[in-house]
C-alpha cells in the first residue's frame, strides 16, 4: 500500500549523480583491466600461460600494456629489492587514477624465501597499497586469474581502493619509503 504521507520528491544531488557515474565507470573499469607487468621475480613465468590460449586472459578484457600511463593494474610479480622498489614507487606514482596493485607470490606478502635477505623488502604494502594478493610460490595460472577476478569483485564492491588509501595516508607511505630507501642524493643518472 502506498503511503499517503507527504514525502519530499527524491532529488539527485551532485554527490548522488557522481556516485552513479562512478558505478557506471566501475563497470567499464573492471571489464577492461590493462596490466603493467613489473616482472622482477620468478612469478613472471606464470604470466605467459595465463595470457595465451590455455587460460586466455583477454576473454576477461585484460591485456598487457606498455607504459604506466596507460595501465590500470601494476602487477608486481615476485620479490622486490631496494633498488627495484624505488623504481616501483616511481612507476606507481606515474599511473593514471584509479590504479590498482596486484602482488603475485609470497615474496611481496612476507618476503618469501628472501625474508632474511638484507636488500629485499618483506612487506610490499608498507610502501604502496596492494589491492589483491595472489599467494603461492609460485602461484599457478588458475590462481593468478582467480586473483584478477577477485580484484574485479573488489572494484565492484568498492573495496579495491588502494589508490585512495595512498592519497589519504600519503605521509605514512612516504615515511616508510624514506625509512627503507633513505634519501639518495642524485647527480648522475648512471650511479644510483
Amino acid at each position, binding site marked *: 500500500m502506498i503511503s499517503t504521507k507527504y514525502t519530499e520528491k527524491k532529488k539527485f544531488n551532485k554527490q548522488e549523480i557522481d556516485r552513479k557515474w562512478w558505478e557506471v565507470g566501475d563497470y567499464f573499469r573492471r571489464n577492461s583491466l590493462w596490466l603493467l607487468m613489473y616482472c622482477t621475480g620468478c612469478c613472471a613465468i606464470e604470466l605467459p600461460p595465463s595470457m595465451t590460449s590455455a587460460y586466455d586472459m583477454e576473454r576477461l578484457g585484460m591485456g598487457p600494456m606498455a607504459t604506466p600511463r596507460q595501465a590500470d593494474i601494476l602487477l608486481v610479480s615476485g620479490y622486490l629489492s631496494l633498488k627495484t622498489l624505488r623504481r616501483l614507487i*616511481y612507476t606507481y606514482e606515474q599511473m593514471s587514477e584509479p590504479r590498482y596493485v596486484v602482488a603475485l607470490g609470497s615474496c611481496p606478502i612476507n618476503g618469501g624465501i628472501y625474508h632474511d635477505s638484507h636488500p629485499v623488502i618483506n612487506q610490499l604494502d608498507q610502501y604502496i597499497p596492494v589491492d589483491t594478493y595472489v599467494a603461492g610460490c609460485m602461484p599457478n595460472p588458475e590462481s593468478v586469474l582467480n586473483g584478477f577476478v577477485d580484484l574485479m569483485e573488489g572494484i565492484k564492491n568498492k573495496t579495491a581502493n588502494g589508490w585512495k588509501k595512498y592519497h589519504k595516508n600519503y605521509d605514512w607511505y612516504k615515511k616508510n619509503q624514506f625509512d627503507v630507501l633513505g634519501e639518495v642524493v642524485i*647527480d648522475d*643518472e648512471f650511479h644510483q
Partner: protein
Amino acid sequence: MASIEFLILFLVGAGIIAYLLTKLNTIVGSIFTIFTVMFVFVSLAQYGFGMDIITTVKILPGISFSQSYLGFYFAILIVFIYLMVSFFHPYFIDKYKYKDSYNLLFLLSLAGILGAFYTNNFLNLFFFFEIIIWTTMFLIPQGKSKEAAVSYFGFSLAGSVSLLLGVFVIFNSTGTFNINDSLALLSGNSAVLVFALFLIAAFAKLGAFPLHIWLPITHGNAPDPFSPVLSGALVKLGGFIAVLALIKITPATVMFRAMDIPIGHYLVAILGGLTIVFGTLMAIKEDDAKKLLAYSSMSHGGYILVAFSILNSMAFAGGFYHILAHALASAGAFMAIAAVSRVTGTTKIKELGGMIHKMPITYLAYLIAIISMAGIPPMGGFISKWLIFQAVIDKGMVFVGVAVFFGSVGSFLYVFRPLAALFLGQEFTEYKHVKEAPILMLIPTFVLMGLNIYTGVFPAAFLKVINNIIVELGYTGITYTTYVISGNNGVLNPALISLVFVVGILIAFIIFILLKKSRKVELMDTYTAGNFIHDEHLFHYSTDFYAPLERLYEKQSHWMTTFYRALAEKVKELGKLGKYLFMSKSLSVTLLWIISIIIFLLWGEVL
C-alpha cells in the same frame, strides 16, 4: 598616382637617408626603413591592382617601364615580404658588422626588384637583376660566413651571364630588346637556344637541381632577417624567368603524344621533379633549421617548375598560387626561426629544445607556416598543391607524379623536425630565461599567420589576380566562384573544408572539456621504464632524427657536393695553369711563348 620611376628614385633616396639615420641611431634608421617600405607597398597596392601606375620615364636615362599583371603579381608579393621582414630590423641590425649600410642595401635591392618587374626591356631587366645581386651580395656576408656570399654570387653570376647570352641571341634574331615583342618574334633554333639559356638562369635563381648548391649555404648563413627575403622573395625571381622561358617562348619541339606536352617542357618537369626529390631528401637530413628550410625552398621551387612546364591554365594557377603560398609560408617559418635565433643565438636543431614554453606565439607562427608548407588544409599550400596535382594527374605524368607526391609527403617529415626538436620536447635549462619576441616582431608574425590561413580558406580573391595573369599569358583562366574552385577532375571548396574542420575541432573540444580534468605534471616526469633521469639533454630526441631513413641514402647524399667540389678543383687547376703560363717569371715559360709566337707568325707567313 604613383609613378614607378618615382618609387624607384624614392627608394634610392630613402636608402641614403636611412644610411645616415642608421649611422646616428640604428633603431631610428630601421623604423625609417619600415615606413619607407610601407609607403612603397601601399602605393603599389593602391594603384597596381587596377594597372594605374604611371610608367612614363622622365629622369632615368635609357630605362623604360610598362606594367603587366605578371610583373605586378611578383612585385607586390616581394614588396610585401620586404615589408614584413623590415619589422625585424630594429632587433637584429645591431648584431651586424656593417650595420650602417644594412638598411641602405635593403632598400636599394627593393628598388632593383621594382625595376626588374616593371621594365619592358631586356637590357634593363639585366641591369636591375645585377642591382639586386650586387646589393644582396653585400647583405649576405653580414651573417655567419663570407663564403656564403661567394657561393651566392657565383651561381647568380652564372644565371645572369646565361640571361645576358639569351638576351643577345634574342637581339640577334629579332632586333629588339623589348620583352614582349621580341619573345613573340622568336622562332626556330634561336627560340630553343633562348629557352635553354633562360632556363639556366631560372634554375640558378630558383636553386633548382642541378644548380642548387648555393641555396642552403646562402640561406643558412645569411643574416637571420634576410633569409626570409631570400627564400620568400628573391628566389621567386627565378620563377619569373621560368615563366618567361616556359610560357612565353614555348619553342616548337617534338610533342609527347601521351601527355600532350612538348619534350623540352617535359624535361624541365623531370628536372623539377628531381629538384623536389633532392630538396626533400637533403632537408630531411639537415640539422640546421635555416638550412632545412632552404632545402625546402628548393623543393618548392621544383613544384613551381613542374607547374609552369605543364602547359595548361590549371597548372599555371597552381604555380602562381604556389609562389604566393610558399612565399608567405617560408617567410613565416624563417621569421619564427629568426625570432628563436635572436634569443638563443643558434639555429642548430640539436642545441635547442622546448622553446614553445617560452615563445608560444612564435611557435604558432611556425606551426601555421609549416602546415601551409606541407600542403595541409586549411592553409594556402593545400590549394596550390591541389591545383598542381590536378594538372599532373590530368596529363598522366607518372614519373613527375612520383616526385610530386614524394615531395608532398616528404615535406611532412622535414617540417616536423624543427617543430618536434626545436619547439617541442624537453625544455632546456639554459633557455629558461628567454622571453617571447617583442611586440614589433609579433606584428608581421600575426599578419603572416592570418594570410597563411586566409589564402587557404578564401582563395577567390587571389585567384582573380592570378586569372588576370593567365589571360594575359594567352590562356583561358580557371573557373572558380566565391567559394568553389573547379579543377579538371573535381571541385574543391576550401571554405567548406575549413568550416568542417572547425566543427570537428569543436566536437573534439567538447569531448575533451566534458571529461575529468587532467593532473598537470612536469615535462621530466615521463615514462622512463622506471629509471631516474635528471638531465633533460639526455631526454631530448633531436640528433639524427630520421636516422633509419637517412642511412638509406647516406652515401648518395654527397654526390652533388662532391661533383661541384671536383668542378671547383678543375677550375682552380685551370686557373693555376693560366697563372703559370701568363704570370710566371721563369725563363722557360717566356721562352715557350716567344717560340710559339714565332711559330704562329711563320705559320701565318706560310698561309
